[in-house]
């Protein structure tokens, strides 16, 4: 049994109905799971002795703009034991978007989730320190959302005052 089949089989065995989709595009295995199971899945993948996905490389989100489930959070995790990078996805349908944090499973997700909150406005529930990563405090918008214009919103950032 190769690595891919092992991972898919193990996850399907444990999270039968919660797995929404398993895709394999360009040799990248991606598993879409129901929103409420993401922390359980993360814990399972990290702690299972056969899998050991102990490193979280990246957390980000996709804004689909027109879909009913507008946001998708994307997690890239890595297992040194299997030498395999796996992608997890979770679709969010509520407004404002919220999802449980995985920063208690993988410590490194702390900053990645802060960045995702800053850029997409997805609230990570129970996150220990959900501040903006790049944009200044008090900025009202989330720049990577599709409805944010590329040129920015005039007046949204305070500029240095120039005395006449």
């Amino acid at each position, binding site marked *: 049994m190769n690595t891919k089949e092992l991972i898919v089989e193990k996850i399907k065995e444990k999270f039968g109905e919660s797995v929404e989709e398993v895709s394999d*595009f360009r040799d990248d295995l991606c598993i879409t799971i129901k929103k409420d199971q993401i922390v359980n899945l993360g814990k399972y993948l990290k702690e299972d002795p056969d899998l050991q996905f102990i490193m979280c490389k*990246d957390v980000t989100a996709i804004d689909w703009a027109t879909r009913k489930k507008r946001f998708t959070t994307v997690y*890239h995790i890595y297992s040194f034991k299997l030498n395999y990078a796996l992608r997890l996805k979770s679709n969010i349908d509520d407004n404002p978007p919220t999802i449980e944090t995985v920063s208690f499973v993988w410590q490194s997700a702390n900053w990645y989730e802060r960045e995702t909150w800053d850029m997409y406005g997805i609230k990570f529930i129970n996150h220990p320190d959900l501040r903006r990563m790049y944009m200044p405090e008090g900025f009202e918008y989330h720049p990577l959302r599709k409805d944010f214009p590329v040129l920015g919103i005039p007046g949204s950032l305070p500029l240095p005052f120039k005395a006449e």
Partner: protein
Amino acid sequence: MDRIQQIYNDEKLLKKLQEDQNLTIEDVLENEMVINMGPQHPATHGVLRLVLRLDGETVVGIVPELGYLHRGYEKMAENMSHIEFIPHTDRLDYTGTMCNNVGYVLAVEKLAGIEAPKRAQYIRMIVSELSRIAAHMVAIGTFAMDVGAVTMVMWTFREREKVNSIFDRIAGARFTTSYTRIGGVASDIDDQAFAEIKQFLAELEPALVEMDKLLLSNRIFIQRLEGIGILPKEDAIALGVTGPNLRASGVEYDVRRAKPYLFYNEIDFKIPTFSQGDCLARYFQRGDEVRESIKILYQCLDKIPQGEVIANNPKKVLSHKTEIYSKMEELIHDFMIINFGINPPIGDTYLSVENPKGELGFYIVSNGSGQPWKLKIHSPSFCNLQAVSQLCKGAMVSDVVAIIGSLDPVMGEADK
């Protein structure tokens, strides 16, 4: 502010404060102090801001603040074609530009299903290893300068200067190279450039020995780094630290070996690791990686095959200018690619490459149009900076500078 002003205005109160004999010198030393370091600070390697809470000279807490160089590259990428974004990758990690170029085009090629010719792949390997040497030279030099060995930066920049001259010969630009293209590289390497690379490598090896002699006979340098900022193996993995910093903590993980891209599987090289995980180990780590890069470069120069440097796939890859001006088909395809992009199939891919700073990954989502629907840059400096608050806790103020220097963040990449 009002209250302080009130006290200063109130003469009676001010006099009483000045006469207060109960305030002793011990009280001042007992209290914790919050100081601000950066964003404009020579030792923070760019516009990194740190807020330190100090008890005397010991750091109690440290909060890094990012975003002073945030240019919104991920947003810009969503509004331009895949080809247009190549020059922007130069500005991510501006010490190792070629590695970024290579990483980005490999990610797009994976998404669009293009394969570059073998000679182009070897050229990419050569330029990324040269770039790695240049970036590590900057890292070592500025790191040594941060802890007081100022001569070192002159010596390492001398070597980096040679790499820049070679890039000038190869790519036509010293710094902002934008050398790779989707499906190959912009131009072939000529014999003189090969000769220059060989000469550079021959000169670099004795120079590295000299640099080690200069630094390792310096007791101050050793004492300021040994046992400072220890990052254990488990913490390094948990915090998502990548690249030389991860390997200096004893994790033998290198993308070139774990998931070989280009032709790194044909090359024989070691992955140097250190078990100590302190600042000195991170210095040795970079030195050893430069030596491995020299080995890789010699092998690449031996093995590089003859042939084309850009794939012949007119619907996805830009043809050469002479063909565009002389053939109708190529002109049409060029027009389509420039105006409407290369339209990769619907889907998303993640590809990471080993950069001088660590693992640089590009996650690209395509909806079938010429512009990426989403492009996420997984930048190694950003991940490495997350370890700062843990490493600095309990260290001295002067160690903070050494720890940041040893992690070697580049803010252009951390802030995107």
